[in-house]
């Protein structure tokens, strides 16, 4: 794979089964985000492919994956609930899940506040609540627990555990232990290719 003219992640091969959580670890710049974006289909690999067994090659992303990147995807001038409702409707979820998801992440009492006024951790929680708006099997998470406090990290862990238990897949790039019941780790090192 190539990022900004630089080769990262060469000769990487791995598979994740349904009901598994895979943690991507490794030093800064090792290619964790690149790998997530490649799985999400934003970046085309120079060679190789991402395949889903038992599914058509052109399985649309919209039906298979949630992507929670570094950025939270919130609009500062919309309220918490407006942001949440927009994503639920846009991603094809039911708006009935919105309140429950906000409740789960402890945001229900903040729903009328513009998202711009939230703290970094609260914004992160709102971004993570998106996972619960629409059911999708594959969750791609980039540093999901950044700026979360201990309690919210525990909530996140329980949400991820439930998803995995229900047969979903979690692929998360992280530096911090997420506290999942069971997970596998994939350590990425620096690629030894030409710069």
């Amino acid at each position, binding site marked *: 794979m190539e990022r900004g003219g630089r080769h990262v992640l060469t000769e990487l091969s791995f598979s994740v089964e349904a009901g598994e959580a895979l943690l991507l670890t490794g030093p800064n710049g090792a290619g964790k985000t690149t790998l997530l974006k490649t799985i999400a*289909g934003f970046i085309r690999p120079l060679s190789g492919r991402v395949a889903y067994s038992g599914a058509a090659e052109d399985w649309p*992303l919209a039906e298979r994956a949630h*992507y929670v990147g570094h*950025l939270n*995807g*919130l609009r500062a001038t919309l309220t918490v609930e407006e942001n949440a409702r927009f994503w639920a409707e*846009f*991603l094809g979820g039911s708006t009935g899940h919105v309140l429950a998801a906000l409740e789960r992440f402890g945001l229900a009492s903040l729903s009328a506040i513009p998202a711009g006024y939230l703290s970094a951790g609260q914004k992160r929680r709102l971004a993570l609540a*998106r996972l619960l708006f629409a059911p999708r099997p594959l969750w791609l998470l980039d540093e999901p627990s950044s700026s979360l406090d201990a309690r919210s990290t525990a909530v996140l862990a329980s949400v991820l555990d439930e998803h995995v238990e229900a047969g979903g897949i979690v692929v998360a790039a992280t530096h911090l232990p997420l506290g999942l019941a069971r997970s596998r780790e994939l350590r990425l090192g620096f690629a030894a290719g030409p710069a």
Partner: protein
Amino acid sequence: MSAFWTLVKRDLLIAAREGGATGTALGFYLIVIALMPLGLGPDMQLLSRIAPGVLWIGLLLAALLSLGRMFDTDQDEGVLEILATGPLPMELVAAAKALAHWISSCLPLAILAPVLGLLLNLELAAYPVLVGTVLAGSPAISFLGSIGAALTLRSRRGGLLIALLVLPLYIPTLIFGISAISAVVTPPGSLGSSLLLLSAVTIASLVIGPISAAAALRMQLS
């Protein structure tokens, strides 16, 4: 299709709440047109003759002001990545955003245009045609503009670059818009064919704009 209208509704809500873009465009249009009589002198016949062109060019420039905002806040906040994981193809995402831009920026300008015609002594017969051409032609401003907005996403201060990229694309709209008005003001001339060509340019832009903008957006994602 519901995701399409959800996105349009969201962008209109944001435009209403943030307010700046529409207000700036209207204010800019008003000032540019108000400067014309001051700069050119109070020659009523001259003003009347150049009114259609001045009104159209002013409108293009005013609409251009808000183009840069079409995607950039969403890019900064990571919204584009998530939009890409939605059920809408990127082409329709770009189309929804261009449509929202047209409703929030171009439509208010189109309504202001005949009012500003008063400042330039526009001939009475020209008012309905002016409104008609602006309504038929202005969607091209938003949809072709979305190409420039998407291409300049990564460059800070891309505003001037957008103008350079997009203004040449507006030439057909400008020519047919003005020729339709002059067909009424200074006959002979064919109003019907100019209007049809103007609409054809708009319809083509509805297709070309989103497809090109989507290609640019996909590049920005990687």
